[in-house]
């Protein structure tokens, strides 16, 4: 079975934030507004972690896009009391929103802090409701949500391939952040496919995973910056 995964080249990433915006629009992620933002309830499936190293004037800034790592050994699925989140056959940590009871155990268990909780029912102004992506359902209040690797696109690609009576090809399915990155810093593909580009890249000497010592086996790899 495929193991979908990602490699982000930090030497190409400039931290422009387009992946964050693309993700938010593609997946109808709620706009929480100023008050909730001030309470740190901003919902971002993709975020950019900015870190500074050193002291003035020898400072180095690093930008790191952070999203669900779709761990092969995910800590979040193990603590879910109702099996609302699970590792699916494609290697994606999937979620069943109506099954979620909002206990937020998974949110607490995630070492990458990439899960958001819907404190309220998402609201859009009447006019803007026309412009949501019909491929992705909006989550109700009281559930946890996170990056799905744009699983709706995988479903579409599978249907397309089935209709054309062929196998899924590399490039048939890519998440919104990968597609829209202006500097082409994000690679996506099947780690199970020995010929895939991501498979080659993850063996690059610059490749690393975040908190890999936890044994979570993330399927998001990073290529470190060239010094």
């Amino acid at each position, binding site marked *: 079975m495929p193991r979908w995964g990602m490699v982000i080249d930090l030497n190409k990433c400039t931290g422009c934030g387009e992946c964050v915006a693309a993700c938010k629009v593609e997946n109808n992620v709620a706009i929480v507004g100023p008050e909730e933002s001030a309470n740190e309830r901003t919902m971002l499936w993709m975020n950019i972690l900015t870190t500074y190293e050193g002291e003035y004037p020898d400072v180095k800034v690093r930008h790191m896009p952070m999203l669900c790592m779709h761990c092969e050994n995910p800590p979040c699925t193990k603590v879910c009391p109702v099996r609302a989140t699970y590792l699916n056959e494609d290697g994606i940590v999937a979620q069943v929103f109506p099954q979620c009871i909002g206990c937020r155990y998974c949110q607490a268990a995630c070492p990458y802090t990439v899960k958001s909780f819907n404190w309220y029912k998402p609201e859009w102004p009447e006019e803007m409701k*026309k412009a949501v992506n*019909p491929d992705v*359902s909006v989550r109700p209040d009281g559930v946890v949500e996170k990056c799905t690797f744009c699983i709706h696109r995988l479903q579409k690609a599978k249907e397309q391939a089935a209709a054309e009576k062929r196998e899924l090809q590399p490039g048939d399915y890519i998440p919104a952040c990968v597609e829209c990155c202006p500097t*082409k810093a994000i690679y996506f593909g099947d780690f199970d496919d020995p010929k895939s580009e991501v498979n080659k890249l993850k063996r690059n000497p610059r490749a690393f995973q975040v908190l890999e010592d936890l044994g979570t086996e993330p399927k998001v790899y990073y290529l470190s910056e060239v010094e």
Partner: protein
Amino acid sequence: MEVSRREFLKYLGITGVGLTLGGCDSMWSVPDEIYEKVGGMPGIETWKTSVCSLCPAGCGIKVRLIDGIPVRIHGNPIHPVNSGGICPMAEAGVESLFNPDRLKGPLQRISKRGEDKWESISWDDALQVVATRLQRLREKNTAHKLAFWAGPENNLSAPLFARFMQAFGSPNLFHFDQAQASNLATYITQGHKNALGYDFKNVKLLINFGADLLDSGPSPVRFNQIYSEMRNRENGQSAKIVHVGSRLSRTAGNSSAWVPIRPGTMAVLALGMANVLIKDRQYNRGFVQTSSFGFDSWRDKNGTTHKGFKTLVSQDYYPEKVAEITGVPAAKIVELAREFGAEESALVLAGGEAANSSNGLYTLWAIECLNALKGNFDGKGPISVQKEPPFAALAQVRQDKSAMSGFEQPQLSQGENACCFFEYATAGLPGGILNKKPYEIDTLLLANVNPVFTSVNQADYIAALKEIPFIVSFAPFVDETNVYADLILPDHTFLEKQEVFYKAPTVEFRYFGLQQPVIEPIHDTRHTGDFILQLSKKLSDTTSSELPWQNYSEYLRSRIEGIYTTGAGTIFTEKMDKAWLKFLKERGWQIFDYTSFEEFWEVLADKGGWLDPFPEETNFDTVFSTPSKKFEFYSQVLEKEFNSQLAAQQSSGAGIDSLLLKWQISASGDAVFLPHFEPLRYELNAGKFNLHLSTGDLITNIRGAGSNLPLVQELFGLLAREYWNSWVEINPETAHSNGISDGDIVRISSKEGSLNVKAKIHPGIMPDVVHVPFGLGHTAYGEYAKGIGVNPYKILEEDYDFLSGAPSLISTKVRIEKANGKEHV
């Protein structure tokens, strides 16, 4: 029509595994009338090509539509400006279309100006009101009392507006365009007013003086791509990028090295580098000898000896002295200069804090001289002169008597803020209006400008607007400026509009992108170009005959037909293999198959624009239009300008000193016409204000134009983790000595006022600089913009580069202290 299972699922929105419906039914309740309009089968996906105009870059986009409703904006992969990339602000473009604060039709004011109370008026009535008023101006032979403030000149509306103003008879068309200051540096040294293009593909060393290329204009997406490309070249060919600036911005952070420098002293560093280059004889002697003027001392026709650039930098800008002024260690200056001299393909660029300062022109000039020393103006290097696409030319405007007399009137002058090159200055406009110099303005048209938000002299603009008897605005939203208008005649938003965008600053190729409606206008709005044409029909025989097009679309097509006729270039194509294109070109063939303009247009609309893949090499020997026909270290262009202005006021018998005093230039003698250091003026009167205030755009909200879009607000300070909010960046040392911790609310005070804002401790900012991002603090512009964050321009001290008229954004000193109260003012 049969609905397939797949389409049915798509309609229900449950095509994703593990995603199910949950409280979302209201979310895709597209109103019936929209379905009817598009003749909708549910769930049909289509794509349309267009151009985003939320910022002046004009990136190519592909819009995804479901049942005719735009839901998502992607980049157009074959548009040469952005090559498929877009920015977070463009992602929010759909919110601009469906924004609840949009004006749904024309409005007229019903209460006092600025009170934001309106009633609707029909387009016909509005047209009649404006026409009657303008006709009266012409009857009284006062056509020149009409003024028009328009946005950047990067589109084909600009020449139409110019033509309208000329046929009507007013010289008072002003474009608000940030790129102009750098064009002026080109004019001073090269004598022409064309913008320069830069090709980075072979550049191995880029030294960027202050231009925040990744976060603000001229084209942030393009520069994110360029920076990424430059440091990811194969086989160890990656370029080195050095950023000179007072703050570790995202641009600086994405460079190989950051050189912190005291604000306002970049000219000194550039001249210091020139000093080292000259001393080491590490400059392009061939170019300097044959194609430059004023490098060595020279004698004029009266026999007077003038100081050359070489003498000036050798005497005044040796590394130790430069280090003292700039704070950059002398060893670093020598190292930087030697690296620049030794690298075969090296380029310097300037902008941002280098340009937006009271010594901006001299600074840009000094930096330009480094490119000259490198010989980058030889046509083979990275620098070229931008050329316009071969649009069909417009015939000379025929004016009637009234238009002629109006058009000959002097332009609106600038009152108190008189600067040397007024055509580049917009900050002086309120002065001219308030002082009625040389006459009062009766009617003002506003298109795509919001100076009350984006200028440093906001109070002056408000006062001036109040002074003008009649104001018409074409903005789709009520903003800080048009809240003072009498009529608002809303334009479409960019997804409903037809327009051509070209000449994005710094691009090295000829191209244009076609913006076209991806959806029919959803409100009763009208293209400003259409309104101007309708107005022309009503005004006079000549305005009608000189603007003969029935609508804007007809005008646009007639201009583009010129390109079809010449057969130049190609419509954007995926097949960008140069050898293949060349093969076709040599045989006069095109990639695309079309036999008529209609067919050409169809392909054009599908692909999104036109490109000339084989730009001619710039021959700078013919481009240099200075008196010496060379690149001028010693600017005779500026000298000539001084002399002509002196001649104009000969009656007063004043000498050059009066000009130096007027334009606040501290140098004297030959140095005035050579690039040199003009200290920022605040040093003299800083007093208890001990920190420099810096400000700048973020890619999430360029020029604050996206503040009415919820997504933009939600992601405003993405990297700082501040959403829907402003903040101030403070060096840890400075914060500590002022007793400030991260997250505290602090008060920033200047002589102009104070702001309360959240503190962010930032190790990448100089200890005596604090930075507040620009974009928020709107007092109008809809519910998402109003009252969110602060506008740092509110506390800027008003100062200008009196040569270029550019406002100085780094001339303000502030102090910070912990505030007890709440955020904001």
